[in-house]
């Protein structure tokens, strides 16, 4: 096995859902030991998403399992002072504490940064909630769906003549973790150099609004509010998704320059319509875009999506297959990167886990264990890490502290 970037780094994770846990994958995949502190009274809601009349098993939770690979899990009742005391023991063990509760939760348990840094002076701690730890709306309780709405991503996705639909997926849940992880690793770089810890506050909605800086500056500088425009771009035409042969099959085609357009015209066999002068410049193609899209669709409609894309890419044109979930599993490029890795979980069985978006050549990320069952690692954590005796563990178990 190669050297791992975070070998020996110890991370304690509180909270649940997606945005916090996804961020910590960046550490877990690169060798950190990550312990998730969970609760049986108030389970991570991702453990409940697949619950139904037939499934009441908190470990039968594919969404949770797929997001939390490489982590250990213990159950701990933080509403019992003995539970909080154990959590504090784990904080002494940890280099990093990560949490994504609403701001008041950690304070209520006495697990806020001020309390924890007294136990571990070089602690790096990150809190990430929807709106941030301060400000008049800090306690606003929302999920990623609300985050996408508040930060502009919903408004910007849809057809101009219809309601905003938002991009599929709760976008702040996938976007914010990348920022949380970057800030966290920067703090670890600083800690190694200076010996000092740090407290970091990442508001998920702010990472999204920061990403949209260009859109916001267009308003702040010029007063303009750019709205959703289907797939069109101000800077390219054609720029859209076009129907292909088959049921609900599509490809994308984009011409960013007049050279691109000339190559496209050649690649589709120089039909008479494409030679029309009104299409030769970007301004002309923008002015006649609806017509252009209809004509191009007549060509794509007769062809399989991959045939279109291979042919156009060969000609140097920016084009893609609108891939379905199934296509992603058959995509040769994702396969080349080992994007989906098969894991075996005691309850949900064999299932894929997705790799991160980057590959490191010398310290590659690895997925060595599936997402944990709730409390699966009680023995390892309470006995081996905290050094509790069997009698102590049995007592705490009976008293409901390890719930």
């Amino acid at each position, binding site marked *: 096995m190669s050297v791992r970037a975070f070998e020996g780094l110890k991370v304690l994770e509180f909270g649940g859902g997606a945005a916090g846990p996804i961020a910590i994958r960046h550490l877990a995949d690169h060798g950190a030991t990550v312990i998730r502190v969970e609760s049986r009274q108030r389970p991570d809601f991702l453990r409940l998403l697949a619950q139904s009349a037939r499934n009441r098993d908190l470990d039968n939770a594919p969404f949770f399992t*797929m997001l939390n690979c490489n982590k250990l899990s213990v159950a701990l009742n933080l509403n019992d002072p003995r539970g909080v005391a154990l959590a504090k023991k784990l904080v002494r063990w940890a280099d990093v504490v990560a949490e994504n509760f609403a701001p008041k939760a950690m304070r209520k348990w006495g697990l806020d940064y001020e309390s924890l840094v007294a136990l571990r002076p070089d602690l790096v701690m990150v809190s990430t909630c929807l*709106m941030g730890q*301060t*400000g008049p*709306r800090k306690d606003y*309780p929302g*999920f990623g*769906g*609300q985050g996408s*709405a508040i930060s502009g*991503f919903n408004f*910007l*996705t849809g057809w101009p003549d219809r309601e*905003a*639909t938002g*991009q599929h*997926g709760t976008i702040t*849940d996938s*976007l914010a973790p*990348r920022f949380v992880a970057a*800030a966290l*690793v*920067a703090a670890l770089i600083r800690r190694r*150099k200076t010996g000092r810890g740090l*407290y*970091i*506050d*990442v508001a998920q909605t702010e*990472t999204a609004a*920061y990403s949209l*800086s260009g859109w916001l*500056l*267009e308003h*702040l500088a*010029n007063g*303009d509010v*750019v709205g959703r425009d*289907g797939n069109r771009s101000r800077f390219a035409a054609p720029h859209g*998704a076009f129907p292909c042969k088959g049921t609900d099959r*599509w*490809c994308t085609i*984009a011409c960013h320059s007049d050279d691109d357009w000339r190559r496209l015209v050649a690649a589709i066999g120089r039909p008479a319509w494409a030679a029309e002068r009104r299409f030769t410049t970007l301004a002309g193609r923008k002015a006649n875009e609806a017509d252009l899209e209809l004509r191009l669709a007549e060509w794509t409609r007769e062809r399989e999506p991959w045939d279109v894309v291979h042919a156009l*890419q060969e000609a140097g044109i920016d084009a*893609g297959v*609108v891939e379905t*979930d*199934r296509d*992603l*599993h058959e995509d040769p*490029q994702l396969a*080349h*990167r080992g994007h989906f890795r098969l894991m075996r979980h005691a309850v949900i069985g064999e*299932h894929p886990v*997705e790799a*991160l*978006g*980057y*590959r490191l*050549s010398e*310290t590659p990320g690895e997925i060595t264990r599936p997402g944990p069952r709730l409390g699966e690692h009680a023995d390892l954590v309470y006995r081996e890490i905290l050094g509790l005796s069997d009698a102590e563990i049995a007592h705490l178990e009976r008293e409901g502290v390890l719930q």
Partner: protein
Amino acid sequence: MARCLDGHRILDLTDERGFLCGRMLADLGADVVKVEPPGGDAVRGRGPFAGRTPDPERSIPWLAYNAGKRGITLDVTRPRGREILDRLCASADALVESYDPDALRDARLDYASVAARHPHLVLCSISPFGRSGPHAGYRGSDLTVTAMGGNMALTGDPDRAPLRCTMPSSYFHGGAEAATGLLIALYARDAVGRGQHVDVSLQAAMVSTIMTGASQWWQHRRDRGRSGALYVVGNTLQREVWRCRDGFVSYALRGGPARIPGLVATAKWMAEEGIDAPAWNRDWSAYNHNNLTQAEVDELSRPLQVLFDRKTMRELFAGAIERGLMLAPVNDAREIAASEQLAARSFFAEIRDEGRGLSYSLPARFARASDVEMDVRGPAPRLGEHNAAVYGEIGIRDAELADLRREGVV
């Protein structure tokens, strides 16, 4: 005040696909040096422009995503330019690039060449599909990688084409993912004893935006299609974006026990408004959104739409906060710029851009920390603004710089 990445230098040779990565690293404290071709980056010519008049110094994407970096010009396609880039690399910790494959070869910035000359350097590549593999040579802008990353097939209305977001969201996911990978490689440098290649794929970054959807397909083997502003939940379609009096709000019937107090509060609100909502008169302790039938979803949705149609986005959000509902306004740029929450957290900073004679407000930070700064450090560089300073730091004196200018290398 100190910053996390003080003392680190990062060369930024990206186009718009990678701008955000360097912006984050600059905010975190790295000396990020933007290296542009002598004619300037492509977005300088494309706009939109601050003040609406075309001017390469007023390109909005340039100003927004390169703020806080230093800027130099260099023609890396010429031997003399490559020689200078080598000297810059010797002074840097990392280099981040997003070249198209041909330009990458011309600049000799493929990993094998870079590693041979600069083993200490972290090379971060941001490309549509990754730097190796069957599609490594394919072109890919936001539209294409959003399609090939699986998000597009699920976004939009069922009766029309699949959709992307009108702003290039893959560049944000990919840029922030790149910053994380690059920093992990920097962190690992002590243990490994050398730099390494951080190979970012925008396509792979986009797959994770569908939140394990692709992985879950492996179990149920059903392609889901698009459902517009509705979400597929269990065997039903449940609305996520709702019309209101002056716009749209986000609200959902799904989400587990954490959502139930908000549902109860919603029922109370409708009752106070005198809205007839029999479906909301139920035992909420047993509520599970997965067990609803479509008829039940429709019965719950109908009175809710009546409530929303009566109120503005602002009224609904104020009510949501007061009553503890998980409801949010579908904000546009105006509402975000006017947000009291963002103002209270100094999210926007006023940039006095004296070099351009401009002043504008800009998102200043993606995070804040207890005793280091993480905010924007100044305006984006003008074309070649820091040539004298940066080249001076690697020992290129005025006379040599003048030569390079004459040759068109700088």
